[in-house]
């Protein structure tokens, strides 16, 4: 009776994998933990607020009106105090802007002096803009002038995307990368060291059968991870999933192939775990932080955005995000898919060049 070595190897390594409860637990626990922590911190949803310090030297009706109105602005955290103490806070970086309402406020034309924090120009600009607008409006009011133009803003109900909606697809992409890279690197280097590869090579086993059986095993675990992260995101973190799970799996599995091949390349290029782990970290850490996993890449300097848009993890996480949040089709993310396939080709070439079936 002829039996398929490929099927038997796949079945054996799947069994071995799923019996190793500890490994499964940790391969799921780590991404879940990261997702939980970042989901709780909830970076995205907190509206950036500016700290404005007001030094009230007038203590009259005009100055108190100004203070009350400033307090009513949501994006402003208002502090009051003496000139010295507020300036000190400004130097400490606790204020973005300190405005001084002189004693003459409300009597004729008054100059309001504003000190701002040069260390945080973005927030200072916002604070200055708020103060400017405020000063203009206050002047019109005091002078009894009706402004020629007014802004009538109306809220529109959006899909109300939260940080979790940004985070969950990113975390799925991240765990695909980690499983591919580290799963392969550690197992293969260990098998090499323990002589398992050598023992298998002493049988008439085809390298191709072994290679593909490992590919299938890893991609199965990737699919499992996608499922668990998606479920936890959906049921516990209120992830607004609007897409097609099948598309998500397809992109995840093809993307997983990139990192599996990279893992093979790394384990081929390194002789021991001691060298393999740092190389894998050297690849994964920059990708993790530069591919828009935890934070949007739009916060990066322009040049960095340009560079990081070509990262393999950016392609994967962007595609996963479009599919899960915007309900995009595979055709709609074809740009990202093209990037994924190019990287897959590069990684496969690297893997075949670097992975050695040396028996030692």
């Amino acid at each position, binding site marked *: *009776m002829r*039996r398929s070595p490929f099927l038997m*190897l796949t079945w*054996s390594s799947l069994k*071995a994998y799923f019996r*190793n409860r500890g490994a499964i637990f940790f391969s799921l626990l780590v991404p879940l933990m990261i997702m939980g922590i970042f989901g709780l911190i909830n970076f995205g949803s907190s509206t950036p607020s500016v700290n404005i310090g007001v030094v009230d030297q007038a203590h009259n009706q005009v100055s108190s009106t100004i203070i009350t109105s400033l307090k009513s602005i949501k994006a402003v955290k208002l502090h009051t105090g003496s000139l010295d103490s507020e300036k000190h806070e400004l130097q400490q970086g606790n204020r973005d802007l300190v405005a001084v309402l002189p004693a003459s406020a409300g009597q004729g034309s008054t100059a309001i002096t504003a000190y701002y924090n040069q260390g945080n120009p973005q927030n200072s600009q916002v604070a200055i803009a708020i103060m400017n607008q405020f000063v203009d409006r206050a002047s019109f009011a005091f002078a009894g002038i009706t402004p020629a133009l007014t802004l009538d803003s109306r809220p529109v109900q959006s899909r109300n995307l939260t940080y979790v909606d940004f985070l969950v697809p990113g975390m799925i992409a991240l765990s695909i990368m980690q499983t591919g890279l580290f799963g392969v690197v550690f197992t293969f280097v260990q098998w090499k060291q323990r002589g398992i590869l050598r023992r*298998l090579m*002493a049988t008439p086993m085809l390298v191709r059968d072994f290679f593909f059986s490992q590919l299938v095993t890893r991609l199965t675990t990737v699919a499992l991870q996608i499922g668990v992260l998606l479920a936890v995101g959906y049921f516990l973190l209120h992830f607004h999933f609007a897409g097609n799970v099948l598309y998500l799996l397809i992109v995840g599995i093809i993307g997983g192939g990139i990192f599996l091949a990279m893992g093979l390349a790394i384990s081929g290029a390194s002789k021991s775990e001691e060298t393999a782990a740092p190389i894998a970290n050297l690849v994964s850490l920059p990708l993790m932080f530069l591919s828009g996993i935890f934070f949007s890449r739009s916060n990066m300097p322009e040049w960095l955005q340009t560079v990081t848009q070509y990262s393999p993890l950016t392609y994967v996480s962007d595609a996963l995000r479009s599919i899960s949040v915007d309900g995009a089709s595979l055709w709609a993310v074809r740009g990202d898919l093209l990037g994924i396939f190019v990287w897959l080709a590069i990684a496969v070439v690297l893997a075949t060049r670097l992975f050695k079936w040396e*028996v030692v």
Partner: protein
Amino acid sequence: MSAVTQAGDSSLATQSQGFAIVVDGLRKRYGSLVAVDGISFRVKEREIFGLLGPNGAGKTTTVEILEGLRGADEGQAIVAGIDVRKDPDKVKNLIGVQLQSSAFFDGLSLLELLDMFGALYHRSVDAMAILKKVDLTEKAHSTVTKLSGGQKQRFSIATALVNEPQILFLDEPTTGLDPQARRNLWELAESIRSEGRTIVLTTHYMDEAETLCDRVAIMDHGKILAMEPPDTLIQALLDKGFHKDRVERSANLEDVFLDMTGHGLRES
């Protein structure tokens, strides 16, 4: 040499009748280091042949070439009638390889592992029968991690028997075992040979080679220094006038140890 044999055009193949292995002028270099320096030897069918030598003598490289795991630079090696340099995969089908590290997929039982190894030879195996041969039926459903040192070695021999090989390669099979387990493994080797298989053994234990091997080859610096039955080599040394400072008594400490602790295997 006009006879045409099934092994093809190799002239050595015509001489391989009655021999499990025929090696002629085998050479392997690693850069400037000559690991195997043009060695020639023959292993008879149903023989237990020992390959002895200090570390770095070239034993492992020689064995790996014969097993089809490593290429050679020069020379010929006919293993089980097949030119291993031309068709290593065909040789792999006819031989069994036991390696020093009996490390396997964690989490699979002995039965499952034997079943998997069988599939690598496109065979469906009677895993229980193989386990019976190496006296491991009680551990059939355990994983390798639960085995004692001797049991691990016996299991690693079991995986080398799934394809009913003509030639079995044993790589330091008793390293790290207690005297009882070593004797147990020697018995296993004898019983495998009695099934009509040839055994090529590498070992650092001279008592092991003396007990088990019909003939031994002593290697150093990539060359074979001598190749004779152990008794012949010992007699040759004595004939040169060699004598030990301390005359061996007819029993040694190992005999005392075994007398006190018995021959029974200690493993649970």
